[in-house]
């Protein structure tokens, strides 16, 4: 490893590093614009110039481009380097407006910092400035091209890194333009990243524009809740309003970027209909009172009707601590163990993943892999940043094969086999000729990863994937699994679930449950059979809901206890790869000032309390039911004592990359029976929509432009066989009921299937039930 001297300090860094990176290790900041750790060095801005005194090249050089050499001597603040960099600043500022006070980026602008640091205060150039007409890029991104310094970071992020195709560089010389061919909403599902990437105020978050200065924002490291990947985010709030989310950095997981669902999907925190006060039988009560009532009634119920009368329902949205406390409470009450997911299929899948003996990959390992087989997963819908990770591996020369019935799209080259769910199970089991060929390819791969979509594969598919991974492992390398689950804490829900416990549906069907306590879940929206659940809920004596989303059950609950969102409290989640990560409180709950008095002047009445501050963290609420109030660290220590392999949780801090659990600590019994296909039926695939399938994005107003209507997709040849045409209203009959949906033709999907998207417009068919069947036909009009 070469040792070099930078500004009289000596450092040893690995071969192949650049001077800029070596300086970073010494804590020496070399000014730069176009260099970005994820995007690499391109040598465009010329800001990072340093002087090399000893080395194979000498003199003024760009530190982002020159690789370190043993014995190299570099200075970063000598007269020549400083002189050149100040010229670069002057060039960059030729056209840039001198109006930081009215710019939305002011205060978190790299150009502002560099310009001030470089001492460029007076403009010598008094020629005409280059100006542009801005484009309307849709509701998420605002553009102010006059501020552009042409570092090319936006296009490298949008196009090169994330694979967007409708945004690029236009024009040349000092009239280079970064945008679209014509006005219009940016199409990529990762468009918001250009806001983070832009070092000045060209691209700003339109949903946050002119709301706050950076230094006024309350920010804290958090974990995204919109899928199971657990990307690192940094939400920012002010005036009791969650105003924006930017990407956090976790090089093991998301890297430097996040998807638009995560970025623009957190306004549920400010939802105007959010239930902020506790209610008992329709009357507003204090949270303390409601909790006291719950404690008393739960105890009485168990005493008089036995352990099965009370059913506690955890959730893949609730934190690890919340789910664990639910378990504790059940134990203390002598109730049956809780059910941790309203959806039986999803719970079994999560449990099968938590029980996996095959090692799980991190998202970084997916990026580093040379061969990925994606089985039954549509990354852009189920785990958007996985799609970006796959793009990176393809850019590095890797290959992606997707076996999925849907018309899967990815922002990279890949091979797609449109197979039905039944064919997919068969492929994973013995495979036939195609499977044999795939196995050979996987065997030849240096670092293969098997991605499995939990919703489509189900628990049995996950077990099949694990045994495939075990067969593909050899002495030199293992074959990793990358399971995709339903929610941010699905893994924990699977881990904590009792292997013998029945599903929510089975428990309710038994008729013994008198009280159902839903902890941050809505079984009407999140269970496998919403229609049947709705009927069963009417038979309950009491429905208790703890939640922060204004769902139907939250509004109908006999007893409602408002909880804090993950942005308003501390806690932890276990993501799909078994990584335990902590999130920290960003802001205190309260009705946003902007919402009080319908956007008029804030209340002129003074009070010592904050309006809408009633919600408790679910952790606090459950601890109070257990008559305890431990600080988070102590609570986590108790969890570790109870669940041994969660060791490390005690030291966990928000903002750290988290740690991955070793799998195989629990055992899961998984049925390998697939339901028989009825004559003339089609296989039904319920797929999460890209936006609005997870509840927190559904209640986020900012994402509404991305919501689509309910539709039924079918292969054109299947349509011909049934004499159907695109646009027909058709009836879908399944075990879950009968639905009328408009039909669209989808030539890239598997034959013998129909695909229905689960979103805000179609809530009754929920993904995660594995293989199921339906009949589709034109509705018969009866006279």
């Amino acid at each position, binding site marked *: 490893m070469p040792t070099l001297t930078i500004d009289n300090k000596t450092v040893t860094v690995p071969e192949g590093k650049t001077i800029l990176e070596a300086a970073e290790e010494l804590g020496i900041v070399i000014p730069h614009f176009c260099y970005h750790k994820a995007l690499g060095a391109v*040598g465009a*801005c010329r800001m990072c110039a340093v002087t090399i005194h000893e080395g194979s090249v000498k003199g003024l050089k760009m530190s982002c481009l020159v690789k370190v050499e043993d014995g190299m001597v570099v200075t970063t603040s000598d007269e020549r380097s400083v002189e050149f960099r100040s*010229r*670069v600043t002057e*060039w960059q500022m*030729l056209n840039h407006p001198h109006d930081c006070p009215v710019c939305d980026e002011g205060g978190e602008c790299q150009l502002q910092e560099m310009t001030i640091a470089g001492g460029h205060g007076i403009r010598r150039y008094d020629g005409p400035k280059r100006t542009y007409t801005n484009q309307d890029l849709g509701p998420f991104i605002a553009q102010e091209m006059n501020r552009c*310094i042409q570092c090319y970071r936006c296009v490298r992020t949008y196009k090169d890194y994330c694979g967007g195709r409708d945004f690029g*560089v236009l024009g040349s*010389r000092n009239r280079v333009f970064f945008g679209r061919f014509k006005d219009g909403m940016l199409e990529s599902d990762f468009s918001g990243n250009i806001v983070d990437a832009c070092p000045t105020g060209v691209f700003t978050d339109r949903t946050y524009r002119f709301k706050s200065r950076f230094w006024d924002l309350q920010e804290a490291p958090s974990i995204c809740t919109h899928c199971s990947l657990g990307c690192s985010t940094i939400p920012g709030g002010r005036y009791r309003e969650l105003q924006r989310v930017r990407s956090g950095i976790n090089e093991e997981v998301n890297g430097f970027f996040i998807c638009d669902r995560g970025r623009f999907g957190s306004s549920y925190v400010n939802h105007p209909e959010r239930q902020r006060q506790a209610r008992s039988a329709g009357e507003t009560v204090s949270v303390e009172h409601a909790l006291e009532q719950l404690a008393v009634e739960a105890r009485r119920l168990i005493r008089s009707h036995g352990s099965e009368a009370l059913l506690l329902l955890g959730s893949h949205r609730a934190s690890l601590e919340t789910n664990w406390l639910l378990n504790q409470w059940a134990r203390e009450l002598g109730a049956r163990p809780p059910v941790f997911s309203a959806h039986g299929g999803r719970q079994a899948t999560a449990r099968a993943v938590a029980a996996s003996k095959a090692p799980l990959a991190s998202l970084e390992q997916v990026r580093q892999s040379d061969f990925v087989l994606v089985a039954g997963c549509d990354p852009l819908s189920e785990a958007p940043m996985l799609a970006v990770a796959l793009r990176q591996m393809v850019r590095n020369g890797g290959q992606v094969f997707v076996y999925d019935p849907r018309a899967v799209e990815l922002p990279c080259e890949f091979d797609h086999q449109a197979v039905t769910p039944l064919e997919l199970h068969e492929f994973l089991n013995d495979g036939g000729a195609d499977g044999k060929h795939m196995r050979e390819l996987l065997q030849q791969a240096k670092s293969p990863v098997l991605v499995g979509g939990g919703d489509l594969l189900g628990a049995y598919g996950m077990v099949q994937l694990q045994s495939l991974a075990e067969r593909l492992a050899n002495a030199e390398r293992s074959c990793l699994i990358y399971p995709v689950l339903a929610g941010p804490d699905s893994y924990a829900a699977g881990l904590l679930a009792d292997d013998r416990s029945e599903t929510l549906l089975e428990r309710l069907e038994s008729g013994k449950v008198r009280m159902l306590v839903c902890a941050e879940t809505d079984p009407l929206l999140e269970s496998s059979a919403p229609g049947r659940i709705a009927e069963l809920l009417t038979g309950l004596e009491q429905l208790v809901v703890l939640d922060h989303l204004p769902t139907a059950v939250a509004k109908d609950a006999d007893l409602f206890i408002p909880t804090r969102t993950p942005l308003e409290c501390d806690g932890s989640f276990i993501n799909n790869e078994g990584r335990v990560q902590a999130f920290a409180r960003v802001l205190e709950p309260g009705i946003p000032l902007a919402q009080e008095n319908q956007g008029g002047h804030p209340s002129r009445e003074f009070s010592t309390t904050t309006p809408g501050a009633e919600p408790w963290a679910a952790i606090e609420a459950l601890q109070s039911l257990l008559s305890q109030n431990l600080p988070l660290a102590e609570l986590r220590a108790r969890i570790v004592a109870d669940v041994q392999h969660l060791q490390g949780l005690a030291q966990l801090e928000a903002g750290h990359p988290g740690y991955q659990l070793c799998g195989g600590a629990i055992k899961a019994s998984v049925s390998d029976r697939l339901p028989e296909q009825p004559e003339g039926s089609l296989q039904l695939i319920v797929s999460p929509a890209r936006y609005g399938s997870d509840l927190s994005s559904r209640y986020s107003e900012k994402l509404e432009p991305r919501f689509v209507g309910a539709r039924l997709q079918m292969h054109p040849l299947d349509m011909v066989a049934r004499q159907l045409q695109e646009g027909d209203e058709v009836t879908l009959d399944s075990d879950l009921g009968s639905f009328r949906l408009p039909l669209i033709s989808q030539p890239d999907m598997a034959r013998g299937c129909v695909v229905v998207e689960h979103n805000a417009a179609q809530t009754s068919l929920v993904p995660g039930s594995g293989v199921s069947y339906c009949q589709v036909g034109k509705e018969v009009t009866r006279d």
Partner: protein
Amino acid sequence: MNETPQLLFKNRRPGETVFMEGYRATGGYTALEKAFREMSPADLRGLVKEAALRGRGGAGFPTGVKWGFFPADAPGVKYLVCNCDEMEPGTYKDGELLKADPHQLVEGMIVSAYALQTEVGYIFIRYAYEPQAENLRRAIAEAAAAGYIGKNILGSGFDFELHVHGSAGRYILGEETALLNGLEGIRPNPRMKPPFPAVKGLFGRPTTVNNVETISNIPHIINGGAQWFKDLALTPDGSGTKLYGLSGHLNRTECFELPVGISLREIVEVYGKGVRGGKRFKACLPGGASTPYLTPAHMDVALDFSSLEQVGSRFGTAGVTVFDENTCMVAVTLNLIRFFARESCGWCTPCRDGLTMVRWLLETIDSGKGIPEHLEMLKEQLKNISGNSFCALAEGAMGPVAGLLNHFEQEIVDHIELGRCPLRK
């Protein structure tokens, strides 16, 4: 009048283009036959190195050395690309050559491809050269019909296909890596080096990019031998002939094939027939718009790579543009800088914005609104732009500015002091 042996221009006659028949009549394709039948690819590469041929596109890099870096024996697809994106102001030699005798380039491409073992060749041609592109397409078809292009050429087992590809028409496409991007159909920004094209060029494969005139010289070297070729030059370390494109304030502005190392005086007085209107010679660009000016003090300098470098200029493309005594050198430089600033691809800051700043400074001085500080600023720009841009465009653009500051600083001072151009009464 012209005593120089004519290699490249031997078939050049006004208004005529020579095709297969005429080209063969003067010894066309004999070099190809000789190369394929008698020489190995390594022999050919050695011959070109021995002949000391230097690139004719402007940079003057020794062709044999460039070919020496090329992994000719490596398996897989490799490319030979001919750079015919001739857009340097004052340079029109390649266009003249292809107007007269396109088969020379085609033959040169085939033997060069054989020497480098590249199966595919592209001629990347300036969009304004459509008639020349048409000549090339016809010549390629004729060569293919004669069995010189295609599979198993002359039974050698070597296959070669040759394509003509039009340029979109920006100056930056003449930069070899930008050209490769343009050829791939992506935005023609220059690429980072390393990796050099010889390692990772067109479509990620080993590629050599050579100029039209360079490649057209190869058959003549094969026919005449390395020593003969070297002896054509008048300077001891020079070699071959050169196409000199004359322009500017001369009585005759034409393209001539003359020895490397001819003196500027001979060019101006004999071939240019003296400065127009009997005026005095004030300055010239010796090799295209990106080469620093020569002055009357340089009249006896030999026009060759090393001798021009010694006087702070460059041989470039040998497009000689002459300015008479009534020419304002600030205005000339401004005119050139306007071109370069307009043709910047916009990738790096010194070129994109630095040249804009230089243009503004020259405009201000030229219009009589300059102040003494502007002269200092101009020097500062020269110091910081030259050598610090991503590719050679900005470096070249600052060539005339360097010449202006070295030889005509007083003219800048006069503009500033008088508040107008001193040459305008």
